[in-house]
């Protein structure tokens, strides 16, 4: 899941927010080689400019993370730390190209026989089958019984969008935009945005984060499921919940599944961190596979941005699990039509890299090692930060830092404390107190820990 925590509403048409705009550059009338352009001509003739038919289109709200990144970039302080980024960083604060990706990329570039025609609308077949296999496991009953299908998509967002469009058109009646869609509170901003953009009108939240306990609010979650209308859609984070880093345990998942089954609720998993969370592909896919084994029909949106470090090639997959092959076939035929009017054909490069890696035992082994390298670094940063805060005697408990999983941690810092960190300490993080563990390095740990300590002791 990418970093798109937007400040405000999801519906662009709802954003008629007035006219305070960021810097608007001056027009360079009459300068440069294009002097005598249309505007200059109009000005020379003393005519009024015709008004734009889009004159009342306001500036849409910028995305918060981008602003944070921009502020960070412009901050000259040498101590500055960015804990707001949405991507992996090495211990030197650098992006990391996975060695296996580099290797496969070279292999693809030297393949003269490669055909650069459009991919099929549903995507590269070997990518789709391998991606779904990774999610569901080699001996998934659904794969054996040939009742799964896949659609290659533009990252996890694209997978959510195709799934959402399909559900709006064909689930719980025809074109039933009123089916309630439940997303966790809090969640990744795009969950609201994508389902809203796909036309759903009733997007609700379910209890998830217990701020006092700094952990999962299981009772609240189960209660919301009990109270949800039958056939509601529940968006579930497969692992490494964004932004809280808090996942249900297997026993808790079992309870969740049992209520969902009894209440006829539809699970739509978002799996953006498989392998990246624990370092183990199977462990991170436990929840999805458990639901499949329990006989659920479900969707699973997969992103390969994080676990392949392929953020900019937009590699995603939507796995469909149905009761039987015939159902899946019909679902896929409708998804093909949906893709045609979204982007028509998906891009190939990222899918080729992932498919080549997953289908070769040698590359696959190497990839698993690369993924573990990233996961292990995050785990060690969690342990280091916690031990430092405990050593400093920072008020509060800090075990949640190591109990949380994945790239993000919900620190429990208040908005004021966050402001203090940004303004006084040049440490950039989201107002929610979410930090990206990858922003921590062996070099800045001490500084970050003492700064957090200071923020908590000085600011209430």
């Amino acid at each position, binding site marked *: 899941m*990418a*970093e*798109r925590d*937007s400040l405000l509403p999801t519906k662009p048409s709802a954003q008629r927010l007035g006219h305070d705009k*960021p810097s*608007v550059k001056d027009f*360079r009338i009459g300068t*440069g080689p*294009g002097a005598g*352009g249309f*505007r200059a001509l109009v000005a020379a003739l003393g005519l009024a*400019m*015709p*008004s*734009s*038919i*889009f*004159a009342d*289109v*306001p*500036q849409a709200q910028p995305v918060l993370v*981008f602003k944070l990144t921009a502020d960070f970039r412009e901050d000259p302080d040498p101590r500055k730390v960015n804990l707001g980024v*949405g*991507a992996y960083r090495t211990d030197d604060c*650098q*992006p990391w*190209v996975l060695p296996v990706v580099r290797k496969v990329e070279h292999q*693809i*570039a030297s393949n003269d026989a490669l*055909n*650069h025609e*459009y991919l099929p*609308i549903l995507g590269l077949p070997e990518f789709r089958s391998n991606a779904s296999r990774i999610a569901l496991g080699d001996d998934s009953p659904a794969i054996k019984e040939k009742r799964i299908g896949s659609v290659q998509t*533009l990252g996890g*967002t*694209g997978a959510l*969008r195709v799934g959402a469009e399909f559900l709006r058109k064909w689930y*719980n009646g*025809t*074109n039933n935009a009123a089916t309630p869609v439940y997303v966790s509170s809090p969640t990744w901003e*795009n969950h609201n945005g994508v389902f809203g953009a796909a036309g759903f009108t009733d997007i609700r939240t379910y209890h998830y984060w217990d701020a006092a306990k700094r952990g999962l609010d299981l009772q609240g979650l189960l209660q919301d499921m009990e109270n949800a209308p039958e056939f509601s859609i529940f968006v579930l984070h497969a692992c490494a919940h964004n932004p809280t880093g808090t996942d249900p345990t297997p026993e808790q998942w079992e309870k969740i599944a049992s209520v969902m089954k009894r209440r006829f609720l539809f699970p739509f998993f978002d799996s953006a961190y498989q392998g990246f969370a624990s370092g183990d592909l199977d462990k991170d896919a436990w929840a999805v596979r458990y639901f499949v084994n329990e*006989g659920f029909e479900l969707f699973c949106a997969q992103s390969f941005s994080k676990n392949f470090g392929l*953020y*900019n*090639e*937009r590699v995603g997959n939507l796995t469909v699990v149905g*009761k*039987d092959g015939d*159902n899946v076939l019909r*679902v896929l*035929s*409708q998804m093909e039509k949906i893709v*045609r*009017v979204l*982007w*028509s*054909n998906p*891009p*190939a*490069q990222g899918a080729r890299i992932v498919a080549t890696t997953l289908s070769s035992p040698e590359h696959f082994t190497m990839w698993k090692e690369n993924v573990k390298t990233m996961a292990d670094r995050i785990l060690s940063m969690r342990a280091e930060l916690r031990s430092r805060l405990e050593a400093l005697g920072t008020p509060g408990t800090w075990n949640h830092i190591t109990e949380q999983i994945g790239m993000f941690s919900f620190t429990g810092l208040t908005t004021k404390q966050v402001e203090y960190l940004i303004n006084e300490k040049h440490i950039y993080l989201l107002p929610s107190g979410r930090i990206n563990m990858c922003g921590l390095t062996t070099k800045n740990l001490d500084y970050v820990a003492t700064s957090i300590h200071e923020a908590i002791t000085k600011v209430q």
Partner: protein
Amino acid sequence: MPTLSVFLDVPLAPKTVGKLLDDFQKDDNPNKVYLAYEVCMTVNEVPWLPPVVPKTLMKLAHDPSHSYEYLPEHGLEAFIRVATELLVGQHSPAIVENRVGGVHTIGGSGAIRLGAMFLKDWHRGPRVVYLQPSQKEQHGLIFQEMGFIIREYAFWDPYRLASDTGKLFDVVEHAPERSIVVLYNPGSFILPRKKWTKLAKVMKRKQIFLFFDVLDQGFISGDPDRDNKILRYFVTQGFEFFCSQCFSSSFGLYDECIGNLIVVALSNKALLHIRSQLDSYARYMWCSPPALGSRVITTILSNPALRREWKKSLRGVVENIMLTREKVKEKLRLLGTPGSWEHITEQDGMHSFLGISVDQVDYLVTKKHIYIPKTGQFNLTCINNQNIDYIAQSINEAILAIGLGPQPREPPTTDSVVLEDSELHIPGLKGEGTKFSGLAALLRSKK
């Protein structure tokens, strides 16, 4: 758990794309020829790739400084800049006045989708979009999904055997004020300057919103600059418009889906506002666009040597297409095929109308294993030295077997301008499949 699937009532969507190709692939006749590819083919019957592209791909794969970080939401800025310059020209007043920009999209379809979503929310006017038949299936479905009514108009006159871009006057005159008109590949329009001036005036008066669709810039004349003269004329006339820009054919990288939605606005402020809204639509469809294709194009277009190389290979392909036109015409002449074949060389671009009847097309497909869409519009790059004789002989045979050959003649009066609201069936709402009617069926797109 319900024992029944929640997907029980989902109907199977019939396959609308690729039926002709399926039939071709199943055909085991050794002489079979497929003339309906969308992509530009080489004489060796593989998709054309300018030699500079694999070279650049290799270079990029070995660039140690490259990382796979997310592109900004609206895409690779450098790419948008070179693509915009290629479209409107480096010295365009819109560039000087800082009122043209773009959003990097997933191919041409992504650009149409993004533009259509914006127009749905922000364009005040009748929900009517005018499209050419060749765009109808792809773009028509998108606009229809966004709630627009589709009306189609055609330049190809099957009676006079010529493209008549003057028909655009009729379209604009008949269109309700503030309609949206999609102009496909304006490079192929043949109209004297005076007429363009007049057309622009009418469009301005009726506040027509233009949505250009530039698919193969450079494929008409071999020169990307020359191909876009008309679009640039509209820029100088102070129009605000959208342009979907697709790089698939001109760089041969169909599989990287490289597109742009170019916005020409009236002011920098308007541009910023429109772009920020477009970003928010993209955010919930694909988040940010894929990088590789745009990096290749940016590398080539911003390096003078590579750019020259690309333009040269593009010119080579276009010259070859022109030569093929001459050859086909000449072969038919030597065979004494009835009818006039001048229209073959009078058209330009990669695809052309053969000008034969539906029955004759059917004869070619079923009897001669030559696969042509029902419109008779075929891809010239699919013709090569190995198959040209067979193709010419088969056309000759089809003409002799079924009536007269193409002959320019006066059209029946009722057919001059028929603009009917199309019934493109949206999947999942009413029925299935795509229905065409009347003249629309006759002029149906190449797909």
